[in-house]
């Protein structure tokens, strides 16, 4: 880093102006935390924390209302679980293919295609999930009557899960591909020289060497899946249920926030405050995952770069 401390006032003013721009990002985080905390405290003055964190009934519209957040946390985990069961094998398979098997020409066409997939608005994926994945993929393929059957249900956690899976495949594929390509060439060549086959090099040498980057990509993908809103609003329904059954209509945390905090919700109401309480839980969950992912990425960068 070059440092040329100048005596000119203009130079110093510019430095401070630029520092202010950078500080704005810290300010954004602070503002997020402040705007979440205030109403959340207000919420816990009305609803006991026990009922919120350990309750399994989420029925804000009933009289008396019940705010058991586990119900919509389960909804989020339900969708995330099935999404990741699809996205991890597909994403990792694509990553290994791209970094170890694909010819440069194939790579040059597949990688941009995955980037296009990453840039598709989630409202479009949500529409695709509810109007194609649900009726054309899940319903015909789901065994009759298993776990209550998929037939005739307008919303399914599994449809939203597969949509979310499709959304995060490019994240896993491209981050894991980067991690595997950061593994030094010498490791490949050493393994080949010892007579290892291509599959063995990929699974026993490159994959473990890039593991921290691969895990980082999966953790980030889970964080994205947990925070995704439009796909679950469109395809998973809005009936809170404490279940991981994929062929149920459920409600995720994000869809509760998106469907409740619209229109003319009054500022002081419990419903308004409950949005912030749910937002705090969501923010805390994704924050932990993001920090883990950032640390893991830094770890492999330190080792190989």
């Amino acid at each position, binding site marked *: 880093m070059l440092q040329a401390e100048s005596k000119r006032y203009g130079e110093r003013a510019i430095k401070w102006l630029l520092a202010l721009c950078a500080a704005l990002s810290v300010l954004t985080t602070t503002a997020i935390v402040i705007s979440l905390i205030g109403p959340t405290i207000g919420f816990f003055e009305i609803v006991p924390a026990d009922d919120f964190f350990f309750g399994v009934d989420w029925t804000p519209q009933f009289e008396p209302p019940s705010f058991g957040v586990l119900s919509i946390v389960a909804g989020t985990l339900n969708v995330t679980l099935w999404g990741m069961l699809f996205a991890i094998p597909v994403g990792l398979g694509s990553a290994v293919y791209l970094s170890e098997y694909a010819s440069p020409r194939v790579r040059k066409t597949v990688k941009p295609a995955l980037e296009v997939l990453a*840039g598709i608005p*989630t409202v479009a994926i949500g529409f*695709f999930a509810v109007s194609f994945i649900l009726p054309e993929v899940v319903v015909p393929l789901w065994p009759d009557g298993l776990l209550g059957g998929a037939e005739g249900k307008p919303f399914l956690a599994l449809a939203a899960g597969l949509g979310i899976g499709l959304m995060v495949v490019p994240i896993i594929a491209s981050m894991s591909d980067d991690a595997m390509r950061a593994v030094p060439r010498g490791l490949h060549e050493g393994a080949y020289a010892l007579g290892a086959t291509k599959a063995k090099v990929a699974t026993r040498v490159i994959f473990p060497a890039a593991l921290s980057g691969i895990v980082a990509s999966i953790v980030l993908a889970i964080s994205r899946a947990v925070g995704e809103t*439009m796909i679950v609003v*469109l395809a998973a329904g809005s009936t809170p249920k404490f279940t991981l059954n994929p062929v149920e209509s459920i409600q995720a945390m994000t869809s509760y926030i998106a469907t409740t905090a619209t229109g003319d919700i009054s500022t002081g109401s419990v419903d308004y405050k409950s*949005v912030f309480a749910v937002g705090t839980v969501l923010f805390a969950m994704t924050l932990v995952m993001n920090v883990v992912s950032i640390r893991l990425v830094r770890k492999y960068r330190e080792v190989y770069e």
Partner: protein
Amino acid sequence: MEAGRATAPRNRLAVAGARSTTEAMLRNQPRSDVIRNAVFAGLLLLAVLIALAGLLALVIQAFAKGSSALSLDLITNPPSTAFPEKAGYRPAIIGSLQLIAGVMLFVVPVGVGAALYLEEYADSSRWWNRLVEVNIQNLAAVPSIIYGILGLAFIVRGPLDLGFILAAGSLTLALLVLPMVIIASREALRAVPDSIRQGSLALGATQWQTIRTQVLPASIPGIATGVILAVSRALGETAPLLLVGATVFVTFDPTPFGTDGYSAMPVQIFNYALRPQEEFQALAAAGILVMLVVLLAMNSFAIWLRNRYEQRW
């Protein structure tokens, strides 16, 4: 060069010989290894094909459902619940254009400024600079709906108290994509070699003169690519806008500070998608097609820009 041409055929012979020896040795692998290899390669290819099939199916399905609604009315007409066959996206398109104009106005100076500070000025051994860095990486992964909550509590109401206006939505989206712009701009700045800076400083330029006349011009293509990708993300974002007022069925052209409400392209698509009637489903699919075309054009332009003006030092 003469000598090079003479040795080329000999090299080619040597390479071919070495390759055939290696292949002959590999062919003697145990049969189970050969099969296992083929199965593994097949599974990997299958994973790629599934991902690409998903993308293809999404586009084809939007076209199959939306082609009946594709007409000029789609762009020129306002939405209508009574006459879905004549309904369109006009206020939503105008709203989206204003939203992303606002995003650019905010995000370009602030994002580039923050990147310049972190790359050119900040001493990364200081804890506060490291804090800013981790903070930006985390902000890039905060769910978009959380930005909606921030917009609702901080921009629409609370300290800024702008009300449910388009400018508030624009500011919310700008904060959402700001980390993306900072990260991309930092990468572009980092690609400029230090020798350029040293040369400029050695000739007596101040640090800001060096940045303004050497570093920034050299990194503009990379920064522009990042800004375009960030704007295309802002353009497709729906969830935060639902919280900061873009929910109403707007039939007039919105203005930045108008208090009568505003709409945006993805919000309007969402609105149509929620209606079960066939006509509205077709409108939603047609809207998705329009957005996909716009986003694809923007992303292609960004990639072209990156490849065309990328400097190799």
